[in-house]
């Protein structure tokens, strides 16, 4: 049976133990105090009430899921004894249920035992429509969660689910304690400030004080399952400010041991690291900075019901030759170097990882300005009046290019504008406050989804390691339009029946090889073949840690702090 092979393949590597970090013979709390700085401050420690990575990562020190993704994207059991598969009998043959078995003897930090009822409660908590759960998508397709015995819990799905590792996997879906959150379900969820600010967990640390949007102090969890861990007795998690000063505090003044997401100009970061106080670490995931081209007409004089909808195709960008030329004129390697340094790689793919889903599409990596010009000439776009901008049928090749406010993105805009000028395309730039651009407010003209521009740039990725839901965003039905209150993430308004059919095929395919093949084909359809999405840079994470902090393994598939239990102090 192919599905079984698929799942086995997906789990390869999952059987390795968590102890990938170097062995350190320390005892719990012997290494003193750990200082972590995030330049965005966590507002709560309940990841189900906030989807932001600042909250989920801070919470990952306290709350744990049944399994995590390691730095290679493989699945690793945490609270579960092993990752269930068809091969080990944990996943039903017909792929409609997955059964998790907890490790024996696990206790919460208050000393009470962790049971399967806590797992079921977590599902009930998030699936209650009144909770307003940010991770509700993790439980999509879940029919019910059944407690089999104290240590065993089964998740049953509505239909065969080839990839069942959504609920209870990774930093976004950890287990909450039923005893603490029993009265916080549904409409009562926001009232439980104490529980939300200091959840009881099974992780290496427990909260001693939480100050919202400012600082968290923690201490080693006395009930943590490994008696030798964590090496640190106490921890300060400071938030707020900006990336540059966070980097300075880790790399120059040495006030902090770990700094998160230090996306700075490469030369600035490199200079800070020369002192030897700390070093930068990078890891790559599936985050891709891309351009999206509007296939529909965003002209301001169109009525609101038609503007930027399929009713009116784009006068310029519906020409595939123009889209191809725009992509060819870009030097992605240079962009990656300018904007992201060591944390950026040029890419032609929407799905750059995991390897099985990554297409071998590399043709776009070489900038080809003459080729781009030739394509435009062939398609009839000619600069007839000698002003440096091409025209066809009285339409000037002029584009409005918008993105969110961010220093790197504004640099990218300026550089791309210049390259496009070289091939005879005029570009007007606009940047929009992130709170508006990403806000999705149907009343605002400046959101990603409204797309009242010709070209826009942003980054996106997917949770976990399976891209099915992510690719399914680009089906015809997901195009934002007035009837859907401008919701949906098919931002370019791409619509191809062949693509939709292939998505349906992916949803029912269990074989990993076949899933990989389909995902790669889907990726190529929107990038190489149609240039609807122009991938630019595969964005890694870049963080920094003090030279005296050992055990850091940067992970872009889960929380960066996923293995904080293994961190230790290196004596200078």
């Amino acid at each position, binding site marked *: 049976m192919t599905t079984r092979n698929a799942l086995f393949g997906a789990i390869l590597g999952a059987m390795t133990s968590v102890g990938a970090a170097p062995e350190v013979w320390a005892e719990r709390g012997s290494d003193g105090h750990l200082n972590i700085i995030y330049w965005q401050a966590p*507002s709560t420690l309940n990841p189900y009430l906030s*989807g932001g990575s600042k909250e989920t990562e801070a919470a990952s020190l306290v709350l744990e899921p049944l399994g995590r993704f390691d730095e290679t994207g493989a699945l690793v059991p945490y609270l579960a004894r092993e990752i269930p598969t068809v091969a080990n009998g944990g996943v039903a043959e017909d792929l409609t249920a997955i059964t998790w078995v907890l490790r024996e003897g696990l206790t919460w930090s208050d000393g009470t035992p962790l049971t399967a009822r806590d797992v079921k409660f977590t599902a009930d908590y998030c699936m209650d429509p009144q909770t*307003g*759960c940010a991770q509700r998508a993790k439980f999509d397709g879940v029919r019910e969660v059944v407690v089999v015995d104290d240590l065993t819990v089964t998740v049953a799905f509505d239909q065969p689910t080839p990839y069942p590792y959504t609920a209870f996997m990774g930093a976004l879906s950890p287990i909450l304690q039923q005893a603490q959150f029993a009265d916080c379900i549904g409409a009562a969820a926001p009232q439980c400030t104490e529980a939300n600010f200091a959840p009881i967990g099974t992780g290496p640390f427990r909260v001693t004080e939480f100050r919202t949007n400012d600082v968290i*102090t923690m201490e080693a969890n006395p009930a943590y399952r490994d008696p030798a861990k964590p090496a640190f007795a106490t921890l300060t998690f400071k938030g707020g400010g900006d990336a540059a000063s966070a980097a300075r505090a880790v790399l120059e003044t040495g006030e902090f041991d770990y700094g998160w997401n230090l996306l700075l100009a490469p030369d600035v970061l490199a200079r800070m690291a020369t002192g030897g106080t700390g070093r930068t670490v990078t890891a790559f995931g599936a985050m891709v900075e891309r351009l999206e081209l509007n296939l529909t007409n965003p002209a301001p004089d169109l009525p609101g019901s038609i503007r930027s909808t399929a009713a009116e195709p784009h006068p310029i960008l519906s020409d595939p030759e123009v889209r191809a030329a725009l992509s060819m004129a870009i030097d992605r390697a240079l962009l990656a170097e300018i904007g992201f340094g060591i944390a950026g790689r040029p890419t032609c793919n929407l799905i750059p990882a995991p390897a099985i889903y990554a297409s071998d599409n590399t043709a776009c990596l070489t900038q080809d300005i003459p080729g781009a010009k030739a394509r435009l000439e062939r398609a009839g776009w000619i600069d007839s009046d000698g002003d440096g901008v091409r025209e066809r049928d009285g339409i000037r090749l002029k584009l409005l290019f918008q993105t969110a406010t961010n220093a790197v993105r504004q640099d990218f805009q300026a550089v791309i504008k210049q390259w496009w000028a070289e091939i005879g395309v005029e570009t007007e730039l606009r940047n929009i406050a992130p709170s508006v651009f990403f806000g999705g*407010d149907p009343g605002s003209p400046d959101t990603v989804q409204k797309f009242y521009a010709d070209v826009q740039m942003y980054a996106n990725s*997917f949770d976990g390691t399976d891209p099915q839901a992510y690719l399914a965003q680009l089906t015809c039905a997901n195009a934002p339009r007035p009837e*859907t209150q401008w919701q949906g993430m098919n931002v370019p308004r791409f619509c191809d029946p062949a693509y939709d059919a292939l998505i349906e095929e992916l949803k029912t395919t269990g074989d990993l090889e076949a899933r990989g093949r389909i995902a790669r084909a889907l990726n190529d359809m929107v990038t190489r073949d149609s240039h609807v999405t122009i991938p630019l840079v595969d964005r890694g994470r870049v963080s920094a840690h003090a030279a005296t902090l050992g055990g850091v393994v940067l992970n872009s598939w889960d929380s960066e702090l996923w293995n904080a239990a293994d961190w230790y102090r290196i004596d200078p």
Partner: protein
Amino acid sequence: MPGRALRRIAVTLPTVLLISFVIFALLDAAPGDPMAQMPLTIPPDVRAAMREALGLDAPMLTQFGHWLWQFFVIEPLHLMDRLLGTGLAGESARVISWQTRAPVMDTVIERLPQTLWVVGLGYLIGVLIALPAGIYAAARPHSRFDRIATLLATLGFSLPTFFTGVLLIVVFSVGLGWFPSIYDTTLRVTSLDTLGQQLRQMVLPVSVIALYNAAQISRFMRAAMRDALQEGHIRTARAKGLSERAVVLGHALRGAMLPVVTVLALGAPQVFAGAIITEQVFRVNGLGQLLITAIQANDLPMVQTLTVIFALLIVAANLLADLAYGLLDPRIKAGVDRHHGRG
């Protein structure tokens, strides 16, 4: 006098309600959405459910009425419970932040100490530098002191705090290693040692704020004192042979304080609003940082509450300024006094 002041406060209350409403309407109409900071990976239907759970779908007037009741009735009851140990408020719902899901006022109270210490002290030191510097410069116009003070003041208010703050960090934290660049809000002063730490971590942010305020206020002080020294009665005093010191401090200062009081009354409520940039640079995480993160997250209850408290303080400070006018110069009839008793 107290009766008039009370009457004036009574007149002020409807104004405050009107101001609250205008602010609420503005926040409601401004673009942006509390879901903006959520990652794009969260699908639209989940976002819609989260919005609904926050009560965003209710009509604007309902939301405003709800907030008004909570802010002006429930929250004071909670405050009384907290201070007196009574149980008046019971289980009634408080103003809850959309972002943190915690009572807004609890966070505000948590933030007050660092804001008052850093921003308040910065303002106070700024004033204490500015007043003598401005007076001295005005008494000796075009002297070397006056020129240097003018230059420094111009630098002080034309260089933004995001620049001076980083400059101080680069010099004193990175270069010399004298002071920390990041403020520890959890530090409790329990001993001489911790007091030293507290003072050390306050030096840089307080300096930035003090410099900025001193620069502005000293210019007003100088200008006002220059004017006052031209007054006829000052000339008379001089002609009578009083010492310059007695003339400046004894006679001119009182008249010169009037515009300075206006400026101080405008600046004092700003202490509550915090110093957004300075707080961000040094991570003081006071009320300024709270306001800006709430604005960025479109956390309407938090922004509304902070802004209305701020508005109350502004109204109060300006009323106090009007009272002070009368004390500085009894001939002036500002505020309520102007509507009555003019014969």
